């Protein structure tokens, strides 16, 4: 599956390894979590009140529509957090975590 975003340049940075829903991926140091995820896919998270995919909107920390989960249950705002080596990102809350998605 191709990604939503396209990198137009600025490719001379060190690689960072991370995962989304268990799938191993690679990004570059300085990529936001959102850019790292959307270069590889077309979804950031599942919407709580309907189950449809969401992929962010404002990219400036205002709309709050890009919060994703880490495997340990913490949440990150994908547009303002930077990807880090070994991050295990999830597009839905970790199993057993309350509140689970309405869907």
């Amino acid at each position: 599956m191709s990604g939503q975003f396209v990198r137009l340049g600025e490719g001379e940075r060190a690689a960072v390894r991370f995962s989304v829903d268990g799938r191993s991926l690679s990004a570059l140091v300085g990529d936001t979590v959102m850019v790292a995820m959307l270069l590889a896919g077309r979804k950031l998270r599942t919407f709580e009140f309907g189950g449809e995919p969401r992929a962010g909107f404002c990219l400036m920390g205002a709309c709050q529509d890009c919060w994703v989960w880490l495997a340990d249950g913490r949440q990150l705002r994908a547009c303002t957090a930077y990807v880090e080596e070994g991050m295990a990102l999830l597009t839905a809350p970790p199993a057993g975590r309350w509140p689970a998605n309405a869907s």
Partner: protein
Amino acid sequence: MAGERVVVVGAGPAGVRAAEVLAGPRLNVILVDENPAPGGRIYQQPPPGFSRGYRQIYGFEAGKAERLHATARALAQRIDYRPSTLAWNVYEKVLYVTSGGVHDRIPFDALVLAPGATDLVLPFPGWTKPGVYTLGGAQVALKHQGCAVGRRTVFIGTGPLLYLVAYQYLAAGAEVAGVLDTSEPELARAQTLGLLSGATTFAKGLFYYWRLKAAKVPMLGGVRPLDVVGEAGVEALRCRDAAGQEFQVAADAVAMGFGLRSECQLADLAQCAFHYDQPLRQWLPTVDEDGQSTTPGVYLAGDGRRIVGAGAAEVGGVLAAYAVLIDFGYPVSLGTHRFWRAHAQNQNTFRRALEAAFPPPVDLAAEADDGTIVCRCEAAAAGEIRAAARQLGASEINRAKALCRVGMGRCQGRYCAVAVQEVLAAALGLSPEAIGRLRGQAPVKPVPVAEAADA
């Protein structure tokens, strides 16, 4: 009294210039900014390790960006500069902030709010689908990250940002599928004289327009978006042209924005009085010429006070700082003060012409189908808002919020309040002003509860 503490919120053009004027031996200045580096959104910097130069990132604005960054860097040695810090509440002359999981409360003698703006968003079917972004967001992807939001992006909306971002995408090598303006070109023509009062900015706008034309990008005025085609993502944007003909543009991303709206939550929490601005279709804090609000000790500058643009924001920052100094009893050169006030006045003519040339197409909200989602946080549709108004008697926006959750979500109404006003006003046959103003709540953005509990 000496050593008064002044807190400036926001390190964009307005906040940096305010802090620059205030910095000195007399005052204790703290500059709080949510971003990791100064510049605001207009002069947002890429993270360390990126290689593009100023000209490549900021184009015509490279000089201004470089000067503002240099000023901010020098200031960081002289004042208490706190990057990556969210200001999330104001209560009884205390600003509540959080940074890296650490909470702090900052008592202040004066507060200068320069929080900037977001895109003004109006709903149309499919605007919540993945692959639809704000114009500002599309621009941040490019400036901050060197990315485009899609392989082939269609731009829809109105205002100078529509043409600027489309041009920036084109110049960066991204494919621009179309630039669709909801405003009729005649509106801009009617404002030619006023637009000429901002000659340099106007000339830049024409340059972007002609570069897009020369690249054979489809450009149309008087367009209405109908819906976003595609389920898991964007496949096309369907529209109606000025003659009523339907057409669609194939694209895998949509960038949308119908103007800008001021960030006002902190001013609201600081108990500032607001008034309704008819051309901008939004509630704005009431301020005097220099930015003094109705709350003693609270001042506003830049786009967070009223949409003025980056150049005027710098002037607004200087004026707000003068107001602070004067209120503390410190001398300010009358000649300099008058010079900047006159400068600010001149820019008003240009802003008013821009507002008349690119009005937000509020009919998108007022006439939205019942099923169109208006509030993306809570998935509240236009029909639910109308039902709250007609069947449950919600004639005021905060009442509608209580009844159908519109504006209650995590964005606090940033992206739906203007639309909700228009939906309610049309449903009840009232003016948007009569619908009232969606009140701000602390925290203005999500803050981990453990941090807030330590406050």
